[in-house]
């Protein structure tokens, strides 16, 4: 098993790099065109889809469904090949197709305009100006295509592990760099990679089956899969297709369990460990009922990348292998507690599935491919290996980053509570602080003369000691009481 994705621009030299790399490593080279041909044969008209999507906006529901089936079929092909063989995929956005699969080396190959013009000249016999226009048009089409499929800018270098500029680096040197990179533990195929590929394959297969069947092809669904468990979320208005979905997905096999959840939207619940016993589950369930939302659980096991290891270098490097003991799968999740939570959500009818991501925050962000499906994120119990203060700090930073990155509300469980059940206790406490602060303030101003007399009387040390003792109590007491009032006022404006 093995997979390397190489994203290319037109005539950027990726073909030669892919061929050389495949030869050096003994991998099979798969080009986008190979898979597109099979997709066409399967009955998905890729060229028509491409034309429709890259032209001016067409809000066509049928196209939307076709697009999702296309993506699912492409993923299915790649997963099957990657599981059974070692492959290099040379295409436009293979890294986006293989969402959430860890330890895959994602490469981008590019060249400057002169380099690419030379390529066009040699292969298409166009003059310089025509070559320039050709390259620009193809780049624009590809950008639109990638954006319409994945909502991402394919040229964003942050999505790749390695970017190679073939106008500066010869192809053979580029291949050497890639091979050196592959030696890093981050790109070793592990049990997690295998599981992720198999889950993605199952998810894609289910999506394809549902999308190709005339009874269910129009359903606006979200499919997730974990081990032998498939979860399908359907909006309430299409609840009548549930039975059809169960029938269509029988072809997945007797060992596969399919669950359908009817929901309007989804809440993404991100934690490192899930527990039934905490109030968070009950609060989220209440919220899901009010919002008519499915609850999608995303287990994130934080594992900092090399740049974040400076402060606390690991004592033992575990080569990226999961340190979790393999536990019997329980309703599609890899640990018992998460399984219990998801089962409870299924019984309540609000389950949106469960998936697991391991790695840095970059991995977490990349695994959230369709943020528009969610109304909000809920974050709890993360960075469990860190001390409590570090957990608080990192959680606060993550909440801020997620909110800005995905432009969605991100809440902690405490915020769920305060919205669902506001506290009378808090109000009484603030009123008490107001009274204390007023009393202290008035006392100081009304007795100022007496205080000055005692504090400046050199002969009266006892008086000084009394005043200083009172001062060391009054000052922090006033500070605390008044600060409680100011904090409450600022909270009314949602500051703090």
């Amino acid at each position, binding site marked *: 098993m093995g997979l390397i994705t190489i994203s290319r621009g037109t005539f950027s030299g990726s073909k030669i790099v892919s061929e050389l790399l495949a030869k050096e490593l003994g991998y099979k080279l798969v080009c986008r065109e190979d898979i597109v041909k099979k997709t066409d044969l399967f009955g998905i008209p890729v060229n028509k889809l491409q034309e429709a999507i890259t032209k001016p906006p067409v809000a066509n529901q049928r196209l939307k469904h076709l697009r999702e089936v296309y993506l699912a079929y492409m993923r299915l092909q790649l997963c099957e090949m990657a599981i059974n063989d070692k492959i290099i995929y040379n295409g436009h956005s293979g890294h986006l197709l293989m969402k959430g699969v860890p330890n895959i080396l994602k490469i981008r190959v590019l060249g400057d305009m002169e380099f690419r013009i030379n390529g066009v000249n040699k292969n298409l016999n166009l003059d310089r100006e025509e070559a320039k226009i050709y390259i620009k048009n193809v780049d624009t089409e590809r950008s639109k295509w990638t954006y319409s499929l994945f909502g991402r800018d394919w040229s964003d270098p942050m999505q790749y592990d390695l970017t190679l500029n073939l106008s500066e680096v010869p192809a053979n040197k580029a291949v050497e760099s890639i091979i050196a990179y592959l030696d890093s533990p981050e790109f070793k195929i592990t049990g997690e990679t295998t599981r992720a590929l198999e889950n993605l394959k199952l998810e894609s297969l289910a999506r394809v089956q549902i999308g190709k069947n005339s009874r269910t092809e129009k359903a606006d669904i979200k499919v997730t899969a974990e081990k032998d468990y498939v979860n399908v979320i359907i909006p309430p208005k299409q609840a009548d297709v549930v039975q059809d979905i169960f029938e269509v997905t029988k072809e997945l096999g007797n060992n596969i369990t399919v669950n359908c959840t009817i929901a309007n*939207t989804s809440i993404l619940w991100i934690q490192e460990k899930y527990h039934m016993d905490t109030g968070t589950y009950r609060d989220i369930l209440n*919220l899901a009922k*009010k*919002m008519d*939302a499915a609850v999608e659980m995303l287990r994130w096991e934080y594992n900092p990348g090399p*740049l974040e290891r*400076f*402060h*606390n270098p690991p004592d033992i490097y575990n080569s990226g292998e999961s340190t979790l003991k393999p536990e019997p799968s329980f309703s599609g999740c890899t640990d018992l507690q998460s399984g219990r939570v998801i089962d409870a959500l299924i019984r309540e009818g609000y389950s949106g599935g469960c998936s697991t991501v391991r790695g840095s925050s970059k991995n977490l962000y990349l695994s959230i491919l369709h943020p528009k499906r969610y*109304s*909000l994120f809920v974050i709890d119990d993360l960075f469990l290996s*860190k*001390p*409590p*203060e*570090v*957990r*608080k*700090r*990192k959680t*606060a930073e993550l909440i*801020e980053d997620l*909110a*800005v990155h995905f*432009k*969605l*509300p991100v809440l902690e469980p405490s915020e769920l509570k305060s*919205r669902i059940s506001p506290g009378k206790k808090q109000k009484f406490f603030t009123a008490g602080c107001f009274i204390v602060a007023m009393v*202290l*303030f008035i006392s*100081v*101003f009304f007795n*100022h003369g007496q*205080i*000055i007399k005692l*504090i*400046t009387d*050199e002969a009266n040390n006892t008086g*000084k000691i009394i*005043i*200083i003792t009172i*001062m*060391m109590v*009054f*000052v*922090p007491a*006033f*500070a*605390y009481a*008044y*600060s409680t009032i*100011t*904090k409450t006022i*600022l909270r009314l404006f*949602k*500051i*703090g």
Partner: protein
Amino acid sequence: MITEGIFPVLDAFSAIQIVILGLIGGTLSGFIGSGGAFFLTPGMMNLGIPGVLAVGSNITHKFGKSLVGSKEHGKLGHVDKKLGLFLLITALIGIWAAVQINSMFFKKQGESGSAAGDLYISIVFISILSIVSVLISKDAVKKREHGEGPSTKLAEFFTKIYLPPVIQFHVADVKVSFWLISVVGMATGFLAGTIGVGGFIGVPAMIYLFGIPTTVAAGTELFLAIFMGAWGAVNYAWAGFVDLRLVFLLYTGSLFGIHLGIYGTKVLNEKIIRLVTGLIILLSVISRIIAVPVYMRKLGYIEIAPKWDPLFNGTSKAFLYAAGISGFIVIITAVIKAYYKRIKIRANLPAVFK
């Protein structure tokens, strides 16, 4: 301002000015961990409050404000008490050394004694803090590959040297050599004792030498300030130089400001925090540079007419105010922008929350 002895007679207008001073100082404190001495003390003196009363009241105010600020920062995981205590013990040694040197200057009688002390303090202030402000500002504007965090070059350098014993600080999530902590603590204490400003060296030192996140440096500095404030409050009160009315009026503004400043550390990125810190320190340094000719004239090193003294002192004061007010404006503007951005995002919250 009219005074009875050294204690001012407060009217509504002067009370409001003190509240506003407190608001600015509190905001700076909550945001960068320092905002007291460099702004509040000269600010109160400018209102006609005698210097020693301004210092004593401000230190007492610092005690309670730091307690609150440190508690709020602590809730966000920004206070490493263990590190604070290590720095405190060594800072006390630094303060002692500073007091010895300062006393040596001020024992000399007359204008030249005071001028010599003022010149010494100004030179220390300018030489150390100009380097600090340039380093922080330069680092803040530099683009980095791995994000917007501060440079870790110095921290990595000291880690490589490995000077045992090395102490683990769990909250700050770093390991630092005891010897490095001692040097930084003593330097912070020495500066606090010399120029009354410890945060300006303590916070950057924690960030760049220890490799601590900016928010933790600000929070831990506030924790340190509790003890320094308490000790200062007791001493100044014993000497009869604390006016509790000034303290409470300062609180009326500063305890609003400190929450705004802490909120700012939550919603704004590290880069802005460091930029604001660098800007404030730089303007404070310029303020001191402008005041130096006055001291040099008094010591006979240069010849300028005494009639120019008010101009130099006034301009120096203006820069000091510019430091505090510009820092305050930058923080508040950035906080308001971030606040409206959040409101916009939170508008997407489902109806069940509204």
